[in-house]
């Protein structure tokens, strides 16, 4: 098994970091940098283990970009076409959580919400918590469309970790049984 995380390629790290530090990213450069990161990981980290018969677990996938970039005002169809080079996952799990729960969880383990995570670049609110609520609510709406459009499997994530893990294992087992 191989795990790959969103926004983790060494190639793009420097530019993403510099851009985020200076809050210098526009919706378009934000979108393109993440696609570059994804392309780099796809070719070096995702496709080789797949060819070797491994299971690749991706922490976030192109759907994250579809949701976030659309909220930032990038054309929806353009982003979908941009990721036309991506491999379609065999199973896409979407952990759905009400906005209040996700805000509470984030605030519980971190002092400060990150600038882009809270959608502060949109200038909708000077308060990070309020901006997060506005921005992520729109992101959740986008995800709801993606569930139908791409057949995402929804896991209700407000429940306990044990409960969620049971559901996840059931879906994964079913997939692996089918593949046999």
């Amino acid at each position, binding site marked *: 098994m191989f795990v790959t995380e969103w926004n983790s390629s060494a190639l793009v790290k420097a530019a993403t970091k510099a851009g985020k530090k200076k809050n210098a990213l526009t919706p378009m450069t934000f979108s393109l940098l993440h696609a570059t990161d994804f392309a780099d990981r796809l070719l070096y980290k995702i496709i080789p283990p797949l060819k070797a018969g491994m299971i690749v677990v991706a922490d976030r996938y192109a759907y994250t970009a579809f949701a976030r970039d659309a909220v930032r005002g990038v054309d929806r169809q353009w982003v979908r076409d941009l*990721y036309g080079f991506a491999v379609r996952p065999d199973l896409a799990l979407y952990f759905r959580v009400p906005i209040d729960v996700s805000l509470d969880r984030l605030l519980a383990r971190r002092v400060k919400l990150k600038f882009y995570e809270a959608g502060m670049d949109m200038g909708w609110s000077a308060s990070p918590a309020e901006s997060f609520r506005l921005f992520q609510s729109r992101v959740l709406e986008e995800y709801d469309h993606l569930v139908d459009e791409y057949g995402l499997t929804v896991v209700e994530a407000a429940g306990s970790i044990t409960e969620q893990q049971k559901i996840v294992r059931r879906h994964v087992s079913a997939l692996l049984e089918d593949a046999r």
Partner: protein
Amino acid sequence: MTPTQDALAPGANGGIQAGRYYGRGLPYLPLDDYPGRIIAIEGSDGVGRSTQIRLLRQWLEVKGYGVVETGWTRSPLMQPTIDLAKSSNTLNKLTFVLLYATDFADRLEKEIIPALKAGFIVLSDRYIFTALARAGVRGVDRPWLRNLYGFAIAPHLVFYLKIDVESLISRVLQARGMDFWESGMDLKLGDDIYDNFRAYQSRLLREYTSMADEFHFRVLDARRPIDRIQEDLRQQVDTFLTQSDVSTPAPEPART
């Protein structure tokens, strides 16, 4: 996630009015009427673009136009990353294309569009056609590429400095020699840099030629002396600016 043909329809192509977005554009940055104009100068490495742009800029400024220059991979956001990626040879064809597109997007939003809105003439040393040509020879899907650059603005004028591969080789050798990327060594056609340069640049020239009609290139023979090419450029730019009624700053009041 293969895109459908339908979804690819509105990408970068020549059927678009100059000064507008080629495709879906930047929905959060609508282009209304703006007073500026964008002129792109395209052509191979070592064909003399920078010299022509410098001379053209001087002439335009003397005529009273405000001029802003923009050039390939010059965005502060991306230049360090692109340089690093090139020097460490970690680029594959997709990341190559996407890094260039990010650089272009950064310059488009932060340099080109503000300058156009402020009434400047933007001289672009290379434009998206360089990206289309380089990615094209590397086998990247053409409809995908055109869709990717659907956020670019169609320039008002595109000049293509055309040269044949023989003349290009002697120029590059006299000036500074052949480098890794200009020779397309990443394509791994062989070990000989001269053979690679010739093969790679020939392919690039074919790509440019195939785009000439699609994107309304004004082709200039780059084998001629510098001042002859410049004369040609100035004449065509002058005609265009006069016809499109681009205003220069108010003339000095007449002395009495």
